[in-house]
């Protein structure tokens, strides 16, 4: 097959890019590892920032909140674009088919906006039908356009690359068992994050295996600040099958919710206004001190909210509104009394979002790689060291549109060579060579070993020694990967899917571990027990990783470009 633009990933970012480019005349293939409109977009909590209602501020307050919340690691140029164009996000969602909550007059007004943690004013819209509503709306948008061909249940094996240019991809379609070759003038990565490397300690969908990070690395791109993995503070700690599932975020602590250790001592005040990093880090450090519950968590006590005017409204959201799914999960895990806030919840942070990712410019072009674009969670820089609640959704639509426009403009009059026959044959043979491999190791066991190691050694609370141990285990698994066994069937080959995903997960894991080892301070979501303070003097730097000549991963740093905002001078 061939096309103008190959969009890899069909959550909010990929679909927005595909539709935007398609409407500008591009012939688009939209590839989805799951189904159209799934991935993490499908399972959002249900809020999206739309910027400030007062246009005279030109997004300056929003920009400041993002940069302060992100501990000054952000790419401020991208932040400014996002803050100024955030109002486009609900418009795009609704053009495709979704809908955001309005007041009784049918308008988006102050009345319907929530204030999520780290935001200094209410600017978050609510999706009344949460993720499924957004996801189905995305499918409407794709179904309406005949110049977008969708390939579902299809995973990329590798990009077609020649002389620093990306020329398409070789893919495997799980449901048909076919190997599909796609020649494309431009290729876009919108594959989302990689928090599944922490399973079960994640609330992400199982597809979030970081595919795009590795595809970009292999194509010559840089990844920025990969140590910045957002842990959302309120994840379940038990039972085993429900570990890591999200049941709230700072805002949902309410005005008088209390976060306590096992001895009943409050560990952080004013939780609802804090960022995710601040609340998660408080729990992580308290448990590291030995003050956690027997399940390794802290206690979130929401009871006082039931007698507080604003708290009562929040309780209603949990009883009947958009947070009801959280109530159902708490009920299943901890029982009825916890579900009605009479008993505290045992909570511990769970891997939720990758702030780090592919370095892009304002048109979504991947720095240093010809013909390659990226948007959404797979990119880095917008959120710095911490993403504010409800901004991920905004990013999908704002940068999905920008990348779609960028790619469409570049396609017009583009005359790039096609991928050569020998290159295609080489890649197809490599993929075929994996099917029916008769090695020693079961892939799923390696996958689980990696996930366990990442949580224990490269998880929320980090130390040099453990990070080094984690890297050693990653090396061992990389070695074992050379000797794996895979089913010989083509159709729905589950072991092949695992193997393709693990090939993506390993470089992502190494990138996170190496970046975490390099950053000798605690900043944003990155907590080093051996370097507990933020160190602006030495570490106002972005950490970048890139493939080296030996197919390894090399780390270097670059001072953060403080384009608009500077941190206050420390100490003096």
């Amino acid at each position, binding site marked *: 097959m061939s096309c103008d633009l190959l969009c890899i990933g069909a959550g909010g970012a990929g679909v927005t890019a595909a539709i935007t480019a398609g409407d500008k005349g591009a012939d688009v293939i939209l590839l989805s590892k*799951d189904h159209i409109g*799934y991935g993490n977009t*499908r*399972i959002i909590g249900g809020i999206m920032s739309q910027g400030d209602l007062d246009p005279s501020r030109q997004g300056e307050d929003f920009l400041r909140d993002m940069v302060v919340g992100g501990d000054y690691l952000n790419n401020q140029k991208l932040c400014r674009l996002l803050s100024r164009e955030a109002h486009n996000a*609900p*418009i795009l969602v*609704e*053009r495709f*088919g*979704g*809908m*955001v*909550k*309005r007041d*009784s*007059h*049918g*308008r*988006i007004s102050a009345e319907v906006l929530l204030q999520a943690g780290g935001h200094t004013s209410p600017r978050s819209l609510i999706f*009344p*039908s*949460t*993720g*499924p*509503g957004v996801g*189905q*709306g995305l*499918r*409407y*948008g794709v*179904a*309406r356009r005949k110049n977008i061909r969708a390939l*579902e249940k299809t995973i990329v094996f590798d990009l077609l690359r020649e002389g620093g240019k990306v020329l398409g991809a070789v893919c495997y379609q799980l*449901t048909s068992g076919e190997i599909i070759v796609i020649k494309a003038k431009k290729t876009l990565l919108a594959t989302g994050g990689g928090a599944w490397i922490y399973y*079960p300690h994640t*609330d*992400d*969908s*199982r597809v979030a295996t970081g595919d795009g990070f590795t595809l970009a690395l292999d194509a010559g791109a840089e990844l920025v600040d990969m140590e910045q993995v957002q842990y959302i503070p309120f994840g379940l700690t038990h*039972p*085993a*099958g*429900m570990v890591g*599932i*999200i049941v709230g975020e700072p805002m949902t602590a309410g005005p008088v919710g209390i976060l306590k250790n096992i001895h009943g001592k409050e560990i952080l005040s004013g939780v609802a206004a804090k960022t995710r990093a601040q609340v998660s880090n408080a729990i992580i450090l308290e448990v590291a001190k030995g003050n956690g519950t027997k399940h390794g968590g802290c206690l979130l006590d929401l009871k006082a909210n039931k007698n507080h005017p604003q708290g009562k409204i929040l309780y209603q959201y949990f009883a009947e509104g958009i947070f009801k*799914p959280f109530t*159902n*999960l708490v009920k*299943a*895990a901890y029982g009825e009394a916890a579900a009605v806030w009479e008993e505290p919840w045992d909570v511990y942070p769970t891997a939720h979002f990758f702030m780090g990712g592919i370095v892009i410019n304002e048109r979504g072009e991947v720095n240093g790689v010809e013909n390659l674009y990226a948007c959404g969670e797979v990119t880095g820089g917008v959120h710095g060291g911490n993403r504010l609640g409800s901004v991920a959704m905004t990013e999908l639509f704002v940068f999905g549109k920008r990348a779609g426009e960028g790619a469409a403009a570049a396609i017009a009059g583009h005359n790039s060579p096609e991928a050569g026959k020998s290159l295609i044959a080489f890649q197809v043979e490599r993929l075929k060579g994996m099917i029916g491999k008769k090695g020693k190791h079961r*892939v*799923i*066991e390696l996958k*689980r070993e990696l996930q366990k190691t990442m949580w224990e050694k490269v998880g929320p609370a980090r130390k040099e020694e453990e990070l080094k141990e984690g890297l050693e285990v990653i090396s061992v698994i990389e070695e074992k990967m050379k000797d794996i066994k895979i*089913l010989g*069937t083509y*159709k*729905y080959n*589950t*072991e092949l899917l695992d193997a393709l995903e693990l090939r993506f997960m390993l470089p992502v894991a190494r990138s996170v571990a190496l970046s975490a080892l390099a950053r000798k301070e605690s900043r944003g979501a990155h907590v080093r027990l051996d370097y507990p303070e933020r160190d602006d003097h030495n570490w106002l730097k972005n950490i970048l990783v890139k493939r080296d000549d030996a197919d390894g991963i090399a780390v270097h740093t670059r001072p953060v470009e403080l384009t608009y905002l500077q941190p206050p001078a420390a100490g003096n």
Partner: protein
Amino acid sequence: MEKITVKICRHDPEAGDKEKVEEFEVSVAEKSTVLEILMQIYDTQDSSLAFSHGCRAKNCGLCAVNINGHPRYACVSAITADAEIAPLSHLPLIRDLVFDRVPFFDYLEGFQPYIVREKEPDAEPETVVQPPEHARLMSCLECFACLSSCTKYDYRDKSFGGPLGFVKLAQLHYDVRDSLDRVSQAREMGIAKCADCSGCTCIAGIPLKQIVIKPFLESLSK
């Protein structure tokens, strides 16, 4: 930890084999779920077992299966001794517990499954009041369990779209931005078959009869 035996329907239509029920001995703890056990079997015993899942938290709808003959979300269903886990019914099977969604969406294509406007809005975001039915219907998890519970649905029968087809039409029927006659489409999709039936259920809790089937039938009889 306790050992129990669960039964799982295995079937590979491509290999031409017959559907068979396999037994697996598994370890369960308090509150173990069906999905947890499927993953345990996959991880420790047989990684050719095909099943779908996404979020583990009843948000994505991908893990719906039949448990002892009833459609359920594997992620929030407690495992019981002698549970029999089978794929959803009436759908094209790919392998084991995985069915193909594509034929349904291909069929739906014939009904313009997207918003068709009379004219573009003057200003965006629009001023628009969302009917509560629309919000409720857009929270459909597209898990296909309703089609499994419907006694009249068969994916090969193009004269009948089944409850999920009607839900997709109802979403647009209640969408104030859409201009097509979705009631006539419901007739084309065969809703008359639902007149004397209350067989289908939504395991995500959408009242199908009340906000989908009945309003369409009533509009048609007017």
